[in-house]
């Protein structure tokens, strides 16, 4: 009995932390989104759900349904995040696979190198890229020398030579990948590292080729890691606003985070900013529910296997 209470007490600080810094803060956003403005354009939160004003939510939903600016920005944000997530996976999976399955005794060193970018602040890393990608920057010269720049121009992903910072969606997507890919690699590494080697050997013993073994054993068993990694990179990418601001600053790369930032910090429409935050959260909640269902299914399939 006593032991049970001890464990509950140990959980208390975390629960209180979450309650104060997540639930209360989130409820404040809801209260503002369903609130009103005073005569000085400052938000007046309505804490009591019975008083909630749905006018602002309807206004934003109408804007989206009528295909106005919020729909444009939401769609762009989804496209950027989807592409950046897919690229992160394409880059991160082989790296995590190598680290977990083939790095041998260098495994920890490889993992350390993966975490290394975290030692430098995200903003500083992005600022460094501004210099590296400037027309005479080292990265620009390298990309030109190895032909990647020409390939991007040929694909229509870059308008001019050396124009990486000229407001290109491709630069924003690559910057998002660069900034968040370690968040994907680490849970993926953990998932791949946990796979029982004997299961892969069993597949090979039963006649599976290396590729078929990977496809039918390793890949399904690493699904929880893939999903966790995708969730970890997608969530901050959806709310990101400083990456497009820093590497582009063009209206063509404006993401929903930029609109929320502008509305809540600089304008008279803070309630609209809160509504956009809420809609974004609702969309992310749907993705989270899908993630939870998918991981449960993957867990059940793994148990059956």
């Amino acid at each position, binding site marked *: 009995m006593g032991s049970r209470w001890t464990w509950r007490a140990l959980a208390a600080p975390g629960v209180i932390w979450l309650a104060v810094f997540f639930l209360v803060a989130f409820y404040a956003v809801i209260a503002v989104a369903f609130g009103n403005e005073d005569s000085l354009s*400052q*938000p007046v939160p309505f804490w009591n759900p019975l008083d909630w004003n749905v006018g602002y939510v309807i206004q934003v939903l109408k804007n989206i349904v009528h295909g106005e*600016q919020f729909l444009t920005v939401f769609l762009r944000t989804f496209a950027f995040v989807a592409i950046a997530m897919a690229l992160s996976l394409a880059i991160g999976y082989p790296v995590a696979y190598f680290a977990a399955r083939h790095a041998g005794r260098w495994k920890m060193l490889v993992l350390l190198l993966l975490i290394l970018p975290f030692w430098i602040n995200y903003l500083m890393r992005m600022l460094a890229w501004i210099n590296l990608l400037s027309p005479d920057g080292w990265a620009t010269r390298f990309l030109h020398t190895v032909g990647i720049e020409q390939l991007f121009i040929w694909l229509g992903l870059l308008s001019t030579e050396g124009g990486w910072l*000229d407001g290109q969606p491709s630069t924003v997507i690559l910057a998002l990948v660069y900034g968040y890919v370690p968040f994907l690699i680490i849970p993926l590494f953990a998932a791949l590292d946990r796979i029982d080697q004997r299961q892969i050997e069993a597949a090979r013993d039963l006649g599976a080729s290396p590729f078929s073994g990977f496809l039918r054993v390793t890949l399904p068993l690493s699904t929880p890691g893939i999903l966790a990694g995708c969730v970890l990179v997608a969530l901050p990418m959806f709310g990101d606003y400083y990456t497009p601001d820093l590497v582009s600053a063009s209206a063509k790369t404006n993401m929903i985070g930029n609109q929320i930032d502008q509305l809540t910090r600089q*304008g008279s429409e803070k309630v609209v900013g809160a509504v956009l935050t809420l809609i974004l959260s609702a969309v992310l909640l749907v993705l989270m529910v899908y993630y939870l269902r998918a991981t449960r299914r993957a867990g059940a399939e793994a148990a059956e296997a």
Partner: protein
Amino acid sequence: MAHPKDEHALTRRRLLQGAAGVTLGAGALGALTGCENTTTPTGSGTGPVQSRFVEAKPVGPGGLPLPRPDNAVTWAITEDNKPILDGRPVEAGPLKIYNYADYIWTGLVQRFEKKYSAKVELATYDTADQAIAKLASGKVTFDVILGLTGSNIVNLIAQQLLMPLNHSYLPNLEKNVWPELQDPFYDRGSRYTVPYVVWSDGIGWRNDKLKEDVAAMDVPWDIFWHSQAYKGKVGVLDDKRDTLSMPMQRDAMHTGARPDLNTEDPAVLEKAGKDLQQLTDICNVKIAYNDYQTLPEAKTYLHHAWSGDIVGAAIYYMPKGVKPDVLSYWAPDANGVVQNDFLCIGRHTKNPVLAHNFIDFVLDEKNAYDNFVQQNGYIPPQKGIDADLLIKQGLIPKSLAGAVTRPDQFAANQELLQLSVEGERAWDDAWSKFKAG
């Protein structure tokens, strides 16, 4: 379509439910009773005077008048918020100053600390909105507030966030400051504010990269709409008021009309927003205010700019081997944007005399000059500082003479001033659409 705010009218009960609403509502109500307008507002649909014989004019929060050059306002001094008496002793401090980051030279602050044997604490804000919200919360007291402008003045007064000034502590105001700004229309008698720095909105460009002579064009603003050759290297300011007013100025220059840069006409704003949207296709325009870095580094060639940033760029940001005369600047002599910001005293200051002393110290000609050349880049409206002096001293090249705002230019242009709540929302909507791409 009615706005959600109007559809769901703010009842007294609801106002009381919001802590912010209580403070702000009470502030606005208090100020409303104490406002005297030298030229009575000419009527409004929502304001205090309604008449079918005059055109309705927008009004500010709580029905307060919106200052305009043709509608000067004298803000009242209320019983509960009077200026300090003459000849009081100086407090020991510390003096708390609230301003934008890097907006005052720390050497000047140290000079003040030494002169008055008082410590100074600097706190910074990112946006005027943020500053006003913090001041209105009443949680923090600041002695001197620096950097707010005519686009915020009604909010500052409506919430009684400022202490009225006693000019007997500010001899440098009359002695040094431009006469045009000693009795401004937005604060007749400089009762609550004195000017800190001035600037114009114009065009900054790299004359070694652009083949056009922008200043020689019939309508220099047209350069943005003819900038296909500089795609990706063109920027406008990330500020809704300054940037939406740019296509309005362009239209007015074409037709020879005088634009109203404080308009609340949705049709004018929609057109301005659409004109700006064209720039996304023409030159993939950047929306940023780091032109003081990107122009010297040639990351942009052409930028809508505040004059102070271009002067600052020439003085502090030129890369090694690049001379400042590669920068040029043009601003209209008339019908464009000029702006000044304020030095004010927080209503609940604990160091009112020291705060007055600080303001007077900043208005001293040498101090104002040093602050400008050592850190700020924005010109103080001082009688003794002009473009000729700065060029003679080699501080700025001749190509940037236009970036030093003149008193006559200040008088012939327009300030971006506080709008009605509905007007502010209309500007925000147009800006949000432009930024969405």
